[in-house]
């Protein structure tokens, strides 16, 4: 009996070790086109999903894409439910106090879009008296709180950027701030085009907005080197550019 238990335990542990390169990569469970969104068959597609596949292949990791609710994604990482976050999460000082980041894999400016017909631009004066919607737990929420909340009429927090866009279409909010690529994708849709237009790029603040998007990892995790190697590899051999040009007009790696 004892032998069977020892054997079983050893098998279980070695099974765990053999699959040690199984990396659960968390993405946001809410659609964030064009980076990651579900299609009608239930598969996740988008630029970021393809990059995940490319980086993991280059780093020889077996990555399992795991959708997790955005506002619980960092606790999921620290509690061990996922091993990495690749959900367009910006590298900021504040987040670095809790988690670690790999090198960045893209960096795009932050813009404000708003309803057509309302005069505004991406400055505190331009947004005075407006109702601004922003996604919770993002650098954009922090930025709006720091710069626009004092003059804006109201700041409304949404669980997903998509819901903020919906309320912008419905007219409940006047403006929203988010990543330029995501908002350009929204403005390309018929509803987005009809309701809203680009109002301007916000003044940069590297402390709040961060220095690009990287892979979120637990502090001290050896996976960091693997991911950095993978990102460097796909940048060097052209895979990154190939995937990017399939979705966007030009590179979004940023300076």
């Amino acid at each position, binding site marked *: 009996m004892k032998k069977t238990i020892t054997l079983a335990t050893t098998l279980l542990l070695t099974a765990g070790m053999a699959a040690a390169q199984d990396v659960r990569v968390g993405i946001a469970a809410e659609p964030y086109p064009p980076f990651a969104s579900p299609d009608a068959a239930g598969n996740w597609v988008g630029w970021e999903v393809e990059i995940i596949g490319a980086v993991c292949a280059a780093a020889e990791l077996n990555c399992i894409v795991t959708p997790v609710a955005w506002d619980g994604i960092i606790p999921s990482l620290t509690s061990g439910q996922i091993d990495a976050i690749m959900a367009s999460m910006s590298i900021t000082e504040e987040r670095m106090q809790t988690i670690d980041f790999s090198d960045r894999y893209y960096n795009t400016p932050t813009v404000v879009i708003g309803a057509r017909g309302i005069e505004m631009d991406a400055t505190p004066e331009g947004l005075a008296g407006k109702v601004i919607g922003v996604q919770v737990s993002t650098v954009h929420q922090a930025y709006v709180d720091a710069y626009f909340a004092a003059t804006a009429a109201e700041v409304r*927090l949404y669980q997903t950027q998509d819901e903020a866009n919906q309320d912008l279409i419905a007219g409940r909010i006047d403006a929203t701030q988010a990543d330029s690529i995501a908002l350009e994708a929204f403005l390309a849709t018929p509803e987005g085009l009809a309701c809203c237009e680009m109002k301007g790029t916000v003044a940069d603040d590297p402390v709040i907005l961060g220095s690009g998007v990287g892979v979120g990892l637990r502090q001290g995790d050896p996976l960091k080197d693997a991911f950095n190697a993978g990102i460097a590899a796909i940048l060097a051999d052209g895979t990154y550019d190939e995937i990017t040009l399939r979705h966007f007009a030009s590179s979004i790696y940023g300076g």
Partner: protein
Amino acid sequence: MTDPPLTDPSSKPVAPQGSGRARLPEWLAPHRIVLAAIGLAIVWLCVTQMRWDWLPDYGWLIAEGIWRTIWLLVVSCILGFALAVPLGLAQAVGPWYLAAPARVFCTVIRGTPLLLQVWLLYFGLGSLFPSIPWIRQSELWPLLRQAWPYAVLALTLSYAGYEGEVMRGAFRSVPRGQLEAAQAMGMPRLTILRRIWLPQAVMQVLPTLGGETVLQMKATPLVATITVVEIYAVASRVRQDTLITYEPLLLLAVVYMALAGVIVLGFRWLETRAPARAG
């Protein structure tokens, strides 16, 4: 404590509880003291070992959040109950063209999750706005822009659906004799409802209503998903700003337990005010 003398070693003490022999009140019984001590130790550990430094920064927001939760609860319960009475009445004694819609309403509300109802009302209605251009100039627009009217509407309809079912049973269970006697006295129908039927029906189901109100309180966090800033939204905000996972959730649990306690005590007090049944 003194035990009665045991003349027969195999017999147990037969004195029933409360027989007059001196014993400690139940809440001071030894095991309760130990449990209370353990409980206090856990609370002390939580207060000293966990991070609570964020409380002063967010104190005002937390107070606002608690107020908004209470406000949502009270308004939706009052309006919901006001809607539930005609719903229950229609199902209990109404003609088929009133009873059937009421029944359908209650079935649909009770058969679908509240989260879905909330999202349907907020985002579903919101998606219709672009196709109604004149709505932005209408008087209602400031109200339609905000989130709390939809929250109140969804919570009210939900409460009305569940209580409509409860009131249906309550109205049916009031003794017919009383209603017939009042009718024989020539009391107008509305007065019968107001003086005899409704009060008795409500008193019969007061415990159930208390339980349902607690359930309604537990449903209020769902409106945080449509940008209403009540206490759950505030705690989520704290969790995301500070990246602290458990302490805000513990605070939330304490707040809700306190609210539930107040509701239960309130309904118990209401029950004592109900006149004693006359046989």
